[in-house]
């Protein structure tokens, strides 16, 4: 379809009950895109490291600030969720896990697991810094 569609859509987001399978599906895409934006930060960090101590200090100060930490925290969670849900996707590619109960359970595992892994990673990071 080359022309953009301006016909009305039947309401769905405001109608159907949100399931974990629905949510994890769109979250997989959203976290993927967010991680893409995050790679810009990674590239900046690497570029600064290659440029010298002064350039690196700018990145470091940004990352240490409240905004930098919030972004980093969000990035960590997005990474963990996309990783766990990605493994769930690979299982589907192998033909496994399509039963509704299984898909729902693994969906919850991805959501909860990502939060847990994020908290563990950050706790460990603070331990390393404090030590």
């Amino acid at each position, binding site marked *: *379809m*080359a022309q*953009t*569609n301006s016909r009305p859509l039947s309401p769905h987001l405001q109608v159907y009950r949100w399931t974990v399978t629905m949510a994890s599906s769109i979250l997989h*895409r959203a976290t*993927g*895109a967010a*991680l*893409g934006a995050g*790679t*810009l930060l*990674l*590239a900046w960090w*690497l*570029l600064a*490291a*290659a440029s*010298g*101590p002064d350039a*690196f*200090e700018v990145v*470091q100060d940004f990352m240490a600030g409240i905004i930098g930490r919030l972004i980093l925290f969000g990035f*960590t969670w997005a*990474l963990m969720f996309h*990783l766990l849900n*990605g*493994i769930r*996707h*690979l299982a589907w*590619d192998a033909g496994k896990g399509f039963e509704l109960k299984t898909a729902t359970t693994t969906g919850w595992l991805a959501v909860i697991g990502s939060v847990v892994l994020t908290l563990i*990673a950050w706790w*460990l*990071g*603070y331990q*390393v*810094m404090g030590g």
Partner: protein
Amino acid sequence: MSLRTPLGKARGLGSAKDGTHHFWVQRLTAIALIPLTIWFVAALVSLAGAGHGEVTDWLSKPVPAILMLLLIVSGMYHLKLGLQVIVEDYVHGEGLKLTSQIAITLGCAAVGFAAAFSVLKISLGS
């Protein structure tokens, strides 16, 4: 509104590009990214609060440098493929679609190249 059937529009245009290759490479890079991501997170945690010297010393060693390069290559390719399907799903105006796909491809290549170059510069020496 055009009265041509979808089949009529499609006939004679050849294959619909290379969807299987896209699917496969997306899975391949995904598989590679599982261990690389785990390593990456562990590495960043161990480098928490590290100064410039510590980071460059770490990236100068062959194994971290190699793994970082593998992460960059697989990650940027995986990102490019992922963003491509996002555009394919949501952007339908031909001009905007083409522009987006080109920007995504070139953007991922540029950022990946910059990151990889930085790693090489640090690890191969000033």
